[in-house]
């Protein structure tokens, strides 16, 4: 923005204006310098991980992280994805990726469905204590999983849901944040729309599916991005609830993989670990990129 502003100043300018123009330019330069440095600072470890994952283990053992490119790229990635490992040999990269995707999607979709329906009930149905129940839901923001982890574990184990996807996902999906955002959004939908739909013969379920859900799609996309990444990066709960290696997610499994690679050969297989780390980072990035364009499109079409 500022850059184009600088150049759109008319060419015929007085001395004062030249000075001013120069100052603006220098400021932009500094702004950009800071941004570029920041971006490099954030990106550098990622790039380093990626590059190191193309070397063989010996190079890493000898001289640490590598800044360059070598010939072991495909081999490392193949081993990271397909070589079975772990104590029982029941797990490879592909099955961990599958588990992670199930957790990520289950978590995000579950959260969106639950919070949308909760917000729908709170906003559109006059029942006693609606406001009270909203605030009760809201206060659960103060009780994240980490605070209630022991009782949650007890309940899930008691129900025999340890080492199941249900046990992995369901305790995580009640969402005060999502409910809050959807509530705010639904309240901004004009009252007349509900009335028009009632006259058009749409009952509560039809109104929800035919009108409210399509109207909320930008909201859904935004929450999906956040929730998917959040679910993907879950560590503590999966560590606790999955003891069976076949249920491991990527985030949970990287450490074990490196350990077991280390055990099984003379040189620790760290570069394979780097390959797996890169794979772990990829899906959230793809989700953000994919949904962001969708999200922006939804915003600019300005539906409401």
């Amino acid at each position, binding site marked *: 923005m500022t850059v184009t502003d600088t150049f759109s100043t008319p060419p015929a300018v007085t001395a004062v204006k030249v000075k001013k123009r120069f100052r603006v330019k220098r400021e932009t330069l500094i702004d950009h310098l800071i941004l570029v440095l920041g971006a490099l600072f954030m990106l550098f470890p990622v790039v380093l991980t990626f590059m190191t994952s193309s070397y063989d283990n010996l190079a890493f053992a000898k001289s640490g992280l590598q800044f360059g490119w070598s010939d072991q790229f495909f081999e490392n990635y193949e081993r990271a994805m397909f070589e079975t490992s772990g104590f029982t040999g029941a797990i490879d990269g592909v099955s961990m990726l599958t588990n992670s995707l199930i957790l990520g999607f289950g978590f995000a979709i579950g959260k969106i469905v639950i919070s949308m329906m909760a917000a729908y009930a709170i906003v559109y149905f006059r029942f006693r204590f609606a406001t009270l129940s909203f605030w009760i839901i809201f206060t659960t923001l103060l009780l994240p999983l980490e605070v209630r982890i022991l009782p949650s574990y007890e309940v899930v184990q008691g129900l025999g849901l340890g080492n199941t996807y249900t046990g992995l996902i369901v305790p995580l999906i009640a969402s005060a944040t999502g409910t809050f955002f959807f509530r705010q959004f639904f309240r901004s939908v004009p009252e007349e*729309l509900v009335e028009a739909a009632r006259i058009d*013969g749409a009952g509560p379920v039809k109104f929800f599916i035919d009108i409210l859900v399509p109207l909320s799609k930008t909201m859904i996309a935004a929450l999906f991005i956040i929730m998917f990444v959040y679910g993907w990066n879950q560590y503590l709960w999966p560590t606790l609830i999955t003891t069976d290696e076949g249920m491991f997610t990527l985030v949970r499994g990287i450490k074990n993989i490196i350990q077991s690679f280390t055990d099984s050969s003379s040189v620790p297989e760290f570069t394979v670990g780097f390959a797996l780390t890169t794979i772990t980072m990829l899906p959230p990035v793809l989700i953000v990129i994919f949904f962001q364009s969708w999200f922006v499109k939804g915003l600019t079409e300005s539906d409401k």
Partner: protein
Amino acid sequence: MAIVSLKALQKIYPNGFQAVHGADIEIADGEFIVLVGPSGCGKSTLLRMIAGLEEITSGDLIIGDKQVNDLDPADRDIAMVFQNYALYPHMTVYNNMAYGLRNRKNSKESIEKSVREAARLLNLEEHLDRRPSQLSGGQRQRVAMGRAIVREPALFLFDEPLSNLDAKLRNQMRIEIRKLQRQLGTTSVYVTHDQVEAMTMADRIVVLNGGNIEQIGTPDEIYHRPASVFVATFMGAPAMNLMEGKVATGGIEIDGIGLLKSDHKLDASSNVSVGVRPEKVKLTTKANGITQPFVHDFTEELGAARLVHGRLGDKPFVINLHQEDEVPTGDLYATISPDMLHLFDTATGKRLS
């Protein structure tokens, strides 16, 4: 197409506020009824009770030959047009109109047929694939009309459908709506606070005030025989001139002005309010039996007419002169002929005689 009757309809909101105090209206088949009144008088409330969007506290609502008090809006055989159009933003114009029919499980072909027919009637044929956000205000209003038409309801309900449009478009849409309604012959109830809309569109006008019906009548009756001081001053721009006085022999004795000639048959010395429409008064330079001295303050030019503001005695008084009639110079007199006076009981505000 149906006869609609409202029998002693009352609305008390949950917070205890009584918005409608017993409304009785009989609407004939195909009639165009306009509810008019100041803001907060209960027009929307009454309309929404008819639509089924607001519960009826007591009374009977009959559409056709069915009592519909407890029916859902969708089962009342009505269609409603809202002020802000209330179109479904994510649906095309076609789907906006078709949605209600789909919910009624009409066949695909019959839906297609009714929507195309409505689109033709409303000049929306090229826009069927557009979203509401890609339409102008007037076009959106037409889509809202179309959504009402395709249902072929027994009753149309309109809640200030034109107030979001600019003045020119409003005049045009006013005529279009009325033409369409005549063509379809559907009974209609139309809410507005715009008296021009009320006067020009209505078969009969219902004037509401504070949740009470002040008068039901044709535009002509409302204008020329207002039933109360409220109706007299609410309808008509500029508003009727109103003066307080006492009945005397041969006229009304106005405080601070003098005797206004009138051939009334009222009891002497009762308190009355006297109204006279600004356009029924003439300005002259010669005094006679039915004139009052008029002090000229200023004039507003309206093009087709001019409003002469001044005073009778010490009371403000407006005269609406036709554009050809100049304001004379010199001593001025307002000619108020006895048969142009509207007399109201000061205590009750009701029309006398």
